[in-house]
């Protein structure tokens, strides 16, 4: 590729070398910064520079190449920062000095315009290429988004006496949060799950699909392995001779330990983990057995606000192989709602940097009466009113299950 100096005609090159001032800089010194005003452009006599915006490197330039003409000739602020990558010798050409030369040598002016247009043409080509690459990446992300949507339940369980509602709002195209709700007929339980994979974006989304699938597959393993037994609420002993409550505890323990140990031993080096709440409800009695693996407190909400908070019973899943998780129990009374949510709710941030906070969520719940769906709509609306136009920082997921009054 011919450099700027090589491409100049002899007269203009001679003139530029005459009016230019030699400047020397050391490695890592800045020539100018984005936003600076400037009256000159530069030609590299010896050494090299990077053109960048913070950590993003836009171009690398070597001997004979020119930069800084946008501010130097056009008078606009510098559009990027230029930093020496090694000892650097520059020829600095002042705008007014160059214009004086051009007044006496009109042929050179024609030549300079031609050269600037060639540079602009090259930049336009690069921008077009980048735009196409960006579009291809966006297309891939859209495919990922559609596939990920399939990892949330498309239909929530319809169980007599219960109402189940979910809410999901990704901060980026793909997300690390998830919720799930499904029946486990072999043990006669309704499973309610919420999870939050650390971090955001594509990495978190890949792990979201892994965690969600392991949890659902293990919890329903009897069904997937064809030993499903029909649930009869009157029967406390299942056909293989065991007590149903023991099977519920076994299901919870297996689900948590298999998911945790599988991810920790297979993917432990990535340090990716998820906080997860897994609850199993016995529909006729409202008994809830659960494991809270490093997740936000779940709430049991009645007419008077939060009656019970369900704090963690063990650490997050996916990095601590062999970690123990206690199984705890609570009662969902008629008319009460189990509310599960991810930290995207209390940590939703307004433009002034203030967080929505658990206090605001608790205050809303104190005042609330209605269906599970309405509850999630009301929380989501309250969060949006609070954050206004601020960019959503984190994924938001909520799952609510209301035990209807008889």
């Amino acid at each position: 590729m011919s450099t700027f100096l090589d491409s100049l005609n002899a007269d203009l090159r001679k003139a530029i070398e005459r009016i230019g001032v030699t400047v020397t800089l050391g490695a890592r010194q800045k020539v100018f910064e984005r936003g600076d005003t400037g009256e000159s452009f530069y030609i590299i006599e010896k050494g090299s520079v990077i053109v960048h915006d913070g950590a993003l490197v836009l171009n690398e330039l070597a001997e004979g190449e020119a930069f800084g003409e946008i501010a130097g000739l056009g008078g606009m602020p510098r559009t990027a920062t230029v930093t020496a990558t090694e000892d650097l010798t520059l020829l600095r050409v002042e705008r007014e000095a160059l214009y004086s030369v051009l007044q006496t040598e009109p042929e050179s002016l024609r030549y300079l315009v031609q050269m600037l247009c060639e540079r602009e043409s090259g930049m336009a080509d690069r921008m077009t290429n980048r735009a196409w690459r960006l579009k291809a990446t966006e297309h891939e992300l859209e495919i990922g988004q559609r596939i990920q949507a399939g990892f949330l339940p498309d239909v929530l369980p319809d169980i007599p006496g219960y109402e189940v509602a979910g809410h999901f709002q990704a901060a980026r195209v793909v997300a690390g949060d998830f919720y799930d709700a499904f029946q486990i007929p072999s043990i006669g339980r309704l499973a309610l799950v919420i999870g939050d994979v650390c971090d955001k974006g594509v990495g978190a989304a890949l792990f979201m699909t892994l965690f969600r699938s392991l949890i659902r597959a293990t919890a329903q393993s009897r069904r997937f392995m064809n030993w499903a037994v029909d649930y009869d609420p009157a029967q406390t002993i299942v056909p293989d001779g065991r007590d149903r409550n023991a099977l519920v505890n076994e299901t919870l323990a297996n689900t948590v330990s298999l998911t945790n140990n599988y991810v920790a031993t297979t993917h432990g080096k990535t340090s990716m983990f998820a906080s997860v709440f897994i609850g199993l409800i016995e529909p006729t009695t409202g008994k809830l057995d659960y494991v809270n693996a490093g997740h936000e407190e779940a709430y049991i909400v009645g007419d008077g606000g939060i009656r019970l908070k369900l704090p963690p019973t063990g650490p997050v899943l996916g990095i601590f192989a062999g970690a123990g998780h206690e199984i705890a129990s609570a009662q969902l009374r008629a008319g009460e709602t189990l509310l599960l949510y991810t930290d995207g709710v209390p940590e939703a941030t307004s433009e002034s940097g203030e967080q929505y906070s658990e206090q605001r969520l608790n205050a809303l719940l104190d005042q609330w009466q209605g269906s599970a769906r309405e509850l999630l709509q009301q929380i989501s609306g309250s969060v949006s009113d609070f954050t206004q136009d601020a960019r959503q920082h984190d994924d938001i997921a909520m799952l609510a299950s209301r035990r209807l009054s008889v």
Partner: protein
Amino acid sequence: MMSEDLQIGVSREEGGKAVTIMRLRGSLDANTQSVLEDKAREVIDAGAEYLILDMSAVDYLGSAGMRAIHAITNLLSPEDPSMRSTHLKVLSPSAAAAKVFKTLGFDSFIDIHESLDDAISSF
């Protein structure tokens, strides 16, 4: 109002074992986790074997920040599968950071100390 960035100061204490102390100031989240991870990688590459993270001035700790802390324990003792972090300790976490340690269950994996002397002599 949370700060949007993370500053890290590094010093060394030469006792029985050479301990490197990283003092964090600001927000440790998805946007700044790489700042901590890169700095830790730099001091570990330069020979640091024992690290103390002073988290007294961390005003926000997100799960992505916790991911970075776990990644550093992996760098310090890659073949140690134990449930305890033996080469990284945490000093005086702010209330906000301490709450996240407790919720996520990291407090049973990483020792938390309230005095620098205790943290240094714990290695």
